[in-house]
């Protein structure tokens, strides 16, 4: 077993009735990484987390967790994981402290100070005697994070952990996760709808759509893909593209709808591109230099892959 990989799935599939929630997914999470799992609602993120946590069972395929691949070993190995999946569950009439104490005893974690320390870590010291049902959404989310951290896990599985948090809370949790990763080398698998937030912390990404893993990449590789480009809007994009190739020897471009052309790569003389459109009588409608954000890359990826997945007329 490769000790540098904390989780690896092999053709992992989960089908509910007629719906394929996860479709032959192969994910690899390196040890010590912060793996951002990205996808729309219904992409399969929570399904993957539930499979990892043992809440549900795969239809086919398998995975290794912390180096072991047998379901019989997972029971013991899951003790080395901490997770928040969907809304964290606690007993409504017990206080934050009592709830955590319940789980501390359950997990056989020694030291009654553990609960106090965990609450302090997530900023809930002052609310320790508040009943769970009286807590705000943000406080409940923090308590869920405290629960995930209580056993000093090796792998943290966090499904939308910043839901319900205010901006200050988001920054606090982000800094906490980074600290845990850097100082305690905890591997973190995190999903979030807020791509900009993931960009701050993730070292690796997995992009899911309709149950399929579209892409798996490192943060560095993603930065290279999200390169800056020239956006040129003309009257006839195809005519402009032909001129790009013949006059400027540029082949690194993409034609988009509405006669928009994106030009990538190293651009030494920007003005030559605008002059090309004007001099050819193509009609330059707009011209701008842009930085591609993760969001744009993600949307483009999702759109193009989903279009590829739609069967065309005449396809068998």
């Amino acid at each position, binding site marked *: 077993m490769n000790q540098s990989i904390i989780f690896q799935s092999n053709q992992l599939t989960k089908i509910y009735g007629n719906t394929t929630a996860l479709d032959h997914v192969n994910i690899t999470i390196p040890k010590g990484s912060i793996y951002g799992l990205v996808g729309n609602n219904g992409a399969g993120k929570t399904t993957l987390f539930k499979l990892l946590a043992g*809440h549900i069972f795969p239809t086919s395929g398998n995975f290794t967790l912390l180096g072991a691949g047998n379901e019989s070993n997972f029971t013991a190995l899951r003790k080395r994981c901490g997770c928040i999946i969907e809304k964290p569950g606690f007993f409504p009439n017990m206080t934050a402290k009592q709830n955590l104490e319940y*789980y501390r005893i359950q997990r056989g974690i020694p030291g009654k100070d553990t609960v106090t320390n965990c609450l302090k870590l997530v900023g809930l010291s002052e609310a320790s005697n508040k009943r769970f049902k009286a807590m705000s959404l943000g406080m409940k989310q923090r308590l869920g994070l405290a629960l995930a951290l209580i056993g000093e896990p090796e792998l943290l599985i966090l499904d939308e952990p910043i839901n319900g948090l205010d901006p200050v809370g988001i920054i606090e949790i982000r800094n906490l996760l980074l600290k845990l990763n850097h100082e305690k080398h905890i591997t973190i698998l995190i999903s979030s709808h807020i791509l900009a937030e993931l960009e701050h912390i993730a070292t690796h990404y997995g992009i899911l759509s309709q149950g399929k893993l579209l892409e798996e990449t490192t943060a560095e590789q993603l930065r290279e893909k999200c390169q800056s480009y020239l956006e040129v809007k003309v009257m006839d994009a195809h005519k402009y593209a032909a001129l790009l190739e013949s006059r400027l020897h540029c082949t690194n471009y993409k034609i988009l709808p509405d006669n928009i052309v994106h030009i990538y790569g190293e651009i030494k003389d920007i003005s030559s591109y605008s002059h090309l459109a004007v001099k050819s009588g193509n009609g330059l409608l707009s011209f701008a230099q842009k930085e591609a954000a993760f969001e744009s890359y993600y949307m483009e990826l999702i759109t193009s892959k989903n279009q590829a997945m739609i069967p065309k007329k005449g396809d068998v």
Partner: protein
Amino acid sequence: MLNYLKSELYRVFHSSGLYLFIGICSLFALSFNCILWAFDSTTTNFPWATIKYSFSTLDTNMYVVLFLTATLTSIIVVDEFKLRTLTNSVAFGISRTQIYISKLLITLLACFLSLFIIESVFIGSGYLLLDTDNSHALRNLLNATVACIPSFIAGCTAFITMYFISGSIASAIWNWIGFIVGIPMITSVLGLKFQFFEWLDSWLIFSVTASYTFDEQSSSLVYLWSSKEGMLHCLLAGFLGTIVFLIVGILKFRKKAL
């Protein structure tokens, strides 16, 4: 599993449900004897203010204790599926089998504790307030309790099984009523005509807890557990019921998606 048991003990004793249940049932038991005593104090020749009458009210209605067992089980188990607290335990690596067995053990502990306290209040208040004639009332009540304990255990196990299969307290309650009460009602009627159903009915826990007849010759109640064979039958019926529900519960819950 020991840690899970300890955590459940912590939860149960830090929640109000068990205390409220014991308090309310004890109050009811005490009130019953107090009312008999009050009636006796204000009426001449009131014949029912005796422990014989008081205790026989319970030992002829042991199925009420069966219902109370199911009620207490629903309080102890808590709707963990709805609260999503069960998922935390599973995610931590506690197996479904361990969860099932632990829940059952804790619930049985709570049930035994409640039974002891409530019955002590009932018996104690009876001896304090009522006429303690030289009858076998206490012995009958204790015999009834011993005979029905396996049925109570089976009733508790049945509820837990139905809860873990259905995933909801409400469904478990209806399923429990259907299985534990509804089926014996059907078998007892069919048993009037068909011997097989009469035999089957005699092994169902609800029928066991509600089985007694009145002997006109001796003017006394005759319970199923009055004889050694009958007592053995009661113990065995409860034991078999427990085993059946335990096996079904564990096997079904092991495969349940949360």
